[in-house]
């Protein structure tokens, strides 16, 4: 933990982890920390605690090591030109009073504690580094120059440097695929209406963000995370720090560019970078064409996310909003990106509740299938509670409900009939759990049928396309010894299967893990 705290991680390299984080994190104006990072190698914490100081002032007999430490600090040979005396004195005072408050006066190894001027210099370097990372132009040698750094620390910096090199390489790769005018002059004129494949995870060049704040936000996050853990974690993160009050009322966008890369907001949106609805409508048409022609999912997903963001910041909630989410949901479904699909689905539910049009029946059916997949009983119950009698009669919803009840009762026969006859895009969702249901059905059959059944029967009962597929499935789960060639055709020796499908079934049911799902 400490190691990762001693430097704010370079935002570019670690933002992967948050690619699916659902919300923005308010960036707090720094208040109590002088620098974005604190070196924990120093035994005494160095944050100033102004409120506590006066109360703790009392006559203290300073131990000799402390006196020596102070003396060394003021020794002319140790004075650093770039740290002025006032700052140094303050730091010294803080260090010692902290030690007094914490009763560590006698335990700290004063002889080896970095001098205050060095601490200050290091903090500055760290802060500078945080900014430098963003600009990808850091010169490590300068930072590593300080003499007090221990080998481990230097090692750390070196490894970071390697990373920065990696970033450089990546940027080079990119510049090969992107014409120079785009690289230097983004969002200008017509060139922008043509797009090149964009990596949706590439968030290094975030134009809207203050570099220094970024570092802080990272640090705050760590703090918030710790706090969250501490107080039981009830969503305290989003409310705990006072967020900068955005100007009242929704933003009205003025951006005329059709395409826009997605970035998570950390500050109030800027109207010139937000596209108004009539532009977004054109964007949607463009994206639909591109998806058909190119099928580049990471590009499409990124574009849709930025569209959703523009809609949200402008508080546009209408039939067009529904269409955007529906299309994104369908594409995500087709590509098996359940995390993204789930985000869209959650929004769609709220939008349908407001009767804004769209295809509520289709998506409510998906929602049921989705919760079957995630084995989310609580949500399944809520879905049942929300459905009206009329909706329960709709073919797609009825199908999904039948799937649910067939599984609840272990009626695999009916389940696989339903699987072969799924309306709309529900099959993409059912494909997600059909394997585990086949395993469940097989372990069921293996216990109930003796001594064997025809392979043909397995094929038909479990909705396989052919005997070959069924045999392959059994093979894939190490059941090759259960297939036997007879005069009447292949038979499946259910009586000899013992626990193999049961074990596979338990394993298959235990791992339903979806990115972006709460």
């Amino acid at each position: 933990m400490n190691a990762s705290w001693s430097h704010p991680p370079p935002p570019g390299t670690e933002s992967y982890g948050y690619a699916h984080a659902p919300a923005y994190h308010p960036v707090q104006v720094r208040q109590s920390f002088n620098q974005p990072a604190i070196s924990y190698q120093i035994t005494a914490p160095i944050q100033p605690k102004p409120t506590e100081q006066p109360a703790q002032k009392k006559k203290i007999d300073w131990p000799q090591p402390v006196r020596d430490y102070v003396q060394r600090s003021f020794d002319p040979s140790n004075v650093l030109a770039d740290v002025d005396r006032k700052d140094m004195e303050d730091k010294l005072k803080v260090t010692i009073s902290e030690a007094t408050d914490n009763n560590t006066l006698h335990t700290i190894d004063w002889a080896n504690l970095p001098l205050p001027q060095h601490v200050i210099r290091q903090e500055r370097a760290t802060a500078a580094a945080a900014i430098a990372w963003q600009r990808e132009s850091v010169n490590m040698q300068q930072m590593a120059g300080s003499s007090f750094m221990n080998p481990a620390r230097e090692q750390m910096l070196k490894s970071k440097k390697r990373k920065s090199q990696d970033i450089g390489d990546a940027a080079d790769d990119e510049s090969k695929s992107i014409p120079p005018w785009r690289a230097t002059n983004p969002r200008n004129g017509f060139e922008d209406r043509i797009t090149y494949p964009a990596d949706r995870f590439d968030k290094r060049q975030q134009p809207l963000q203050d570099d220094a704040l970024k570092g802080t936000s990272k640090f705050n996050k760590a703090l918030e995370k710790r706090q969250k853990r501490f107080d039981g974690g009830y969503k305290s993160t989003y409310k705990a720090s006072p967020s900068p009050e955005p100007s009242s009322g929704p933003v009205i966008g003025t951006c005329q560019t059709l395409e826009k890369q997605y970035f998570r907001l950390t500050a109030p949106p800027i109207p010139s970078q937000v596209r108004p609805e009539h532009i977004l409508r054109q964007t949607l048409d463009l994206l639909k064409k591109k998806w058909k022609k190119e099928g580049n999912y990471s590009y499409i997903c990124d574009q849709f996310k930025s569209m959703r963001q523009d809609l949200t910041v402008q508080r546009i909630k209408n039939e067009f909003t529904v269409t955007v989410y529906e299309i994104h949901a369908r594409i995500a479904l087709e590509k098996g990106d359940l995390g993204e699909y789930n985000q869209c689905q959650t929004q769609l539910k709220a939008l349908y509740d407001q009767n804004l049009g769209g295809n509520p029946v289709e998506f409510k059916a998906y929602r049921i299938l989705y919760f079957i997949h995630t084995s989310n009983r609580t949500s399944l119950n809520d879905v049942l509670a929300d459905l009206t009698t009329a909706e329960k009669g709709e073919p797609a919803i009825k199908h999904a409900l039948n799937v649910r009840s067939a599984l609840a009762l272990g009626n695999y026969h009916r389940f696989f009939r339903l699987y072969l006859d799924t309306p709309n895009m529900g099959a993409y969702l059912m494909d997600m759990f059909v394997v585990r249901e086949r395993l469940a059905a097989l372990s069921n059959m293996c216990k109930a049928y003796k001594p064997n059944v025809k392979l043909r029967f397995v094929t038909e009962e479990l909705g396989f396309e052919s005997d070959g597929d069924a045999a392959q499935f059994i093979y894939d789960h190490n059941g090759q010894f259960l297939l036997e060639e007879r005069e009447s055709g292949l038979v499946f020796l259910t009586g000899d299967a013992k626990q193999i499908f049961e074990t596979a079934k338990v394993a298959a049911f235990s791992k339903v893990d979806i990115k972006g799902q709460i």
Partner: protein
Amino acid sequence: MDLIFGDFRKFYEVGDGYGLAQTLSPISPPSQPERLRNFYRSTNFQNVQKDFKYQILYDNSAPFKLPADEGNGWVEVYVAYWKAVGEIQIAEAAANSGHKASWMKVYEAWKELTNMLHRGYMNCNFGSWTIPCLYVVGKYLRVFAIKADEGAASSQAVSATFQDDFNPDSEKNEKLEDAARQLNRIFNLCLSDRASLEESRKWGIYNIINLLFKTYFKLNSISLSKNILKAIRAYRGDMPPLESFPLAHQVTFKYYVGVIYFLEENYVESEKNLTEAWTLCHKDSIRNKELILTYLIPCHLLTTHTLPTLALLSPYPRLQKLFLPLSRCIKKGDLSGFDAALIAGEDEFVKRRIYLTLERGRDVALRNLLRKVFIAGGFEDAKEPGAPQVRKTRVPVAEFGAAISIGSKETMDNDEVECLLANMIYKNLMKGYIARDRGIVVLSKGGAFPGTGV
């Protein structure tokens, strides 16, 4: 003012925490309907601080003297309470005259009271015997939050976000989520008290946990309850055992834990906790017993395949309506009747989150039907006179199929019948195997339907 502070002194002197807590109730007692109104009118914004200070700290007629920090802490608490009472009266007056009441302000004022009380424990040495005050304040914090959210839903409060998507849930339950956070603070206040057990706020923990559970259930964030249980488990070494807490706290806690397990389909643990709650529950709290049985009965159906007796249900007309139709069908093995009863009760079952569990009772109904077929098959011809009779254990699938088709009032093909039979065998409701080639089921000679006597 005199009334309330008279009570304050009275209860403080004897150390009656529950009595003290009543002086912070937002509702006038029936015996004194004007109590809160008079209390609010007895002072004003300008003088409230000074007046209360006099009452709590400097009144020489008081039989005891409070230490300054503790006294000042209580002054702040009662000032906040006085302001909250003011907001409540405004809201109630508005509601009575048909205007829109602003429960939002009531909530904020009450939250301030909660904060003051919290501060009192943190900084002003409030004694642990006063923790019932936390119960009362926590209880109404939740109540006012719900009212505030109800009001906000219609006015569609504009909350600023930088989020990529709207967050429909937090817009709907903004204050209640906030209340959950405040309750969580109180939870930690109790949990982390390091004073010795006799003096500890830990004795308040289960009451607060129950409030939190209640809130999480309402927010549909039941998973958060797990965090609480984890925290409690981590501290269990320092915690008095659950048995030494007031029975009321125990029963509610066990009930919620039972329901949490129930929703996770851990019916064994659920049954254990619910049964404990059931036995500890006060014999006259019909409503609570009814709630416990709502989950205990379905639990029992799945774990032991037994149905509630009429005698058990007789004091609870609501439960009779809920469970009797299904029970009858299960007993008779009436599949179509079971399906109809499930559909008829669906809304109610879903609301109580027992639908998905009850649905699985169909297995028991099917078992009973198949058992009838088995019994109707009669006995093998005796090989020699006087030998014990043996039931026919080879039953054609078609016979079961006929029974199911009659029972469910739709024709079912043999493959599906076999599928249902396979399920029965897999779930150990029936012992035997299907010989598909010959189209028969070979049942076990010793107990084809375990636990049913045949």
